[in-house]
């Protein structure tokens, strides 16, 4: 090991405690979904509470950070040569899920596999079925490619309308099913997912189904189960996961898709060459081998979620049942108004989510301490701001 590398590692050990904030990259989603021309955010303010992007406020665990640090020894090597390598990460994911490496494809965040899915399965004559509101990446890609998009509104409980989505799936190229759903936070049970998949397979066998389980690790509802068995059972059905949420690695870009080997092979062909960086690979391998940390993170989040949901309910605001690390609240006024009022108090909450931007706001969950401070701000803002659901159209310019 070159001398400089050794002194770097020693130096890191002395820099205690090091922070995981760098790799958690809070605020990332909010920034990425802005148009490219937007002004860069104002300089960092340590007093800010960033609860706008569904990131883990603590970043990755210590094992991941230590592995990341050690990985600098191989920073000059391609991620296939580094130790651990991209192949090692693929194997680790496979082992955690009890599948074969051939069932797994890595992405530079799940963003990359979502984009690939739209490219593989849709066309100008095979539309994309998605929900409204839901995570917008697939429909954005569809728009870039000139693929028609059918958006099915969520039901009155904020849940994806599986019946209408299945109807719309006839002749579709791809159905995007985010479970639990971002930004509504709700989920469908294992049984409902299985029925949904079976129905589409029966009524429109050529239609692929992408089940995005980005928030899987945060679910506490006992009726939920991963759709992984369905992905392994059916061709053209696959799940995606990300290490940007519970694993706290939004800044490192690790995601993956799992499905039948033949389905996954097509994704591999489209993957960006060397789509993992060696630091992320090392951190991800360590993290996947540290399930206790994820359990603790899930428990920590559930506590902050309960506190925050209860706060809104006590105040008389309707909150859909969140199974994620954010809550979606009917604040009965435009999200933008609430967002900018909170921002004045250095609390950053979520952006607009059409078609509910006139009534609902998404609040990501920070630490319990952050949520206590944030809810004090919410009380001030909601107590003083003019309740104006009727004014929704003033600010209803969807960011697309």
């Amino acid at each position, binding site marked *: *090991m070159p001398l400089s590398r050794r002194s770097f590692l020693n130096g890191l050990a002395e820099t205690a405690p090091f922070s995981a904030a760098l790799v958690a990259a809070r605020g990332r989603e909010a920034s990425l979904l802005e148009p490219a021309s937007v002004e860069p*955010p104002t300089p960092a303010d340590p007093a800010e509470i960033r609860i706008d992007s569904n990131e883990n406020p603590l970043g990755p665990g210590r094992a991941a950070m230590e592995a990341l640090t050690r990985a600098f*020894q191989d920073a000059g090597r391609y991620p296939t040569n580094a*130790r651990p*390598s991209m192949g*090692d990460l693929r194997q680790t994911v496979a082992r955690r899920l009890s599948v074969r490496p051939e069932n797994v494809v890595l992405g530079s965040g799940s963003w990359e596999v979502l984009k690939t899915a739209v490219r593989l399965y849709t066309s100008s004559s095979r539309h994309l079925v998605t929900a409204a509101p839901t995570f917008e990446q697939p429909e954005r890609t569809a728009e870039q490619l000139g693929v028609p998009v059918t958006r099915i509104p969520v039901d009155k409980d904020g849940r994806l309308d599986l019946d209408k989505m299945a109807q719309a799936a006839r002749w579709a190229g791809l159905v995007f099913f985010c479970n639990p759903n971002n930004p509504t936070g709700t989920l469908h049970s294992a049984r409902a997912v299985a029925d949904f998949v079976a129905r589409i397979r029966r009524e429109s066998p050529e239609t692929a189904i992408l089940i995005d389980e980005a928030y899987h690790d945060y679910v506490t509802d006992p009726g939920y189960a991963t759709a992984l068995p369905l992905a392994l059972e059916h061709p053209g059905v696959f799940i995606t996961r990300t290490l940007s949420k519970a694993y706290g690695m939004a*800044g490192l870009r690790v995601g993956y898709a799992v499905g039948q080997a033949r389905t996954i092979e097509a994704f591999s062909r489209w993957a960006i060459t*060397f789509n993992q960086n060696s630091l992320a690979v090392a951190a991800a391998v360590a993290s996947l081998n540290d399930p206790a940390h994820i359990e603790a993170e899930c428990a920590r989040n559930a506590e902050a979620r309960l506190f925050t949901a209860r706060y809104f309910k006590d105040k008389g605001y309707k909150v859909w049942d969140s199974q994620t690390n954010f809550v979606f609240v009917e604040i009965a006024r435009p999200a933008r108004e609430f967002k900018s009022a909170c921002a004045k108090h250095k609390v950053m909450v979520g952006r607009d989510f059409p078609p509910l931007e006139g009534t609902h706001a998404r609040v990501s969950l920070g630490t319990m301490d952050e949520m206590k401070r944030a809810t004090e701000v919410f009380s001030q803002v909601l107590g003083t701001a003019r309740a104006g659901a009727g004014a929704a159209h003033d600010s209803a310019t969807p960011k697309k």
Partner: protein
Amino acid sequence: MSFTRRAFVRTLGIGGASVLAARRSAGAGLLQLQGSTPAERPLLLHNNENPLGPGQAVLDAVRASLGEGGPAGRYTYRRVAELHEAIAQKFGASPENVVSGCGSTQILRSAVQVFTSPDKPLVAGQLTYEECAGYAELIGTPVRAIPLDRTLKLDLGAMADAAKGAGLLFLNNPNNPTALLHGGDAVSACIDRVLTASPDTTILIDEAYHDYVTDKAHRTQVPTALKNPRVIVARTFSKAHGMAGMRMGYALGHPDTVKKIGDWDGANALNVPAVVAAIASIRDQARLDAERDRNTAARQFTIDWFAKAGFVSTDSQTNFLFVNIKRPVKEFREACRAQGVLVARDFPPFENSHVRISIGTLDEMKRATDVFGKVLGVKAKAA
């Protein structure tokens, strides 16, 4: 173009290209890595990596980011803007002239995506870095592959002729895997010819190995790219900057052209430590100069060794050699691997004569040439 780089990566993908290392770690269990120094591995002279990795300034910057906590990592976008500013400053350009990507590979793909189509082909050398052609195949863009000339150089005249009606012309200068350079005048003449004969064709010059060039005839095409919307120059942090594992590349061009490329994927694939590292590295010209000198000495040593042993290398302007070993590369490669030295894969149509060998440290090249000597049956130490 059946054996693309992508296919290569995929083939070896599960264990990584370092087959031996992967096999070892698979057997030993991954967690065994924790807390221990990794075991010895073969000399990796197969992927054109910088054997020293990034410089001290990079290590310090990343260390500071990891250590500072809180604010250091919160604003990804601010860091990307800062990176584009730093790159622009180095080239006397403005941030609107810069796009960054997950390695220059992502930028190459995006360029093929936005500038080619089924009726606007890609033009590339028959033997060159395959990313563009591989991606063109995926999206159904025809590829006009132009064979090298008799000196193994890219045939600029034939490429310019073929560019008529094409969407994109890809020019890797110096070229991988032949290591050969076209001088600034020749490249400029080629660009002028394409722009005149086929004004709708975009020209992508990949200068991945720019920092290793020692030939005085070399001239970067960045100034042309900044002025002309039809010319883009791609660079990478994977070679002289020593950051292949971190995944960062960039391109410079006219703001309209750069925006088209950047809008395709956005900044979604950029990782934060790489952005921090790249900002430090782009400002550290002294490290790049030292790295070039180090590479030049190790490169010359290796070229001389082969020459004395009776094997001719091309005039390498990169961190690798393309050597005529006068035998099938496969058997040479396997024999070297058995002795702990990895050299590159086959590059048809030269798979029976020329091997690509990346340049490690001088010490590594001394060890490697000992092995080459044994494998090639060279009697005495030639160098």
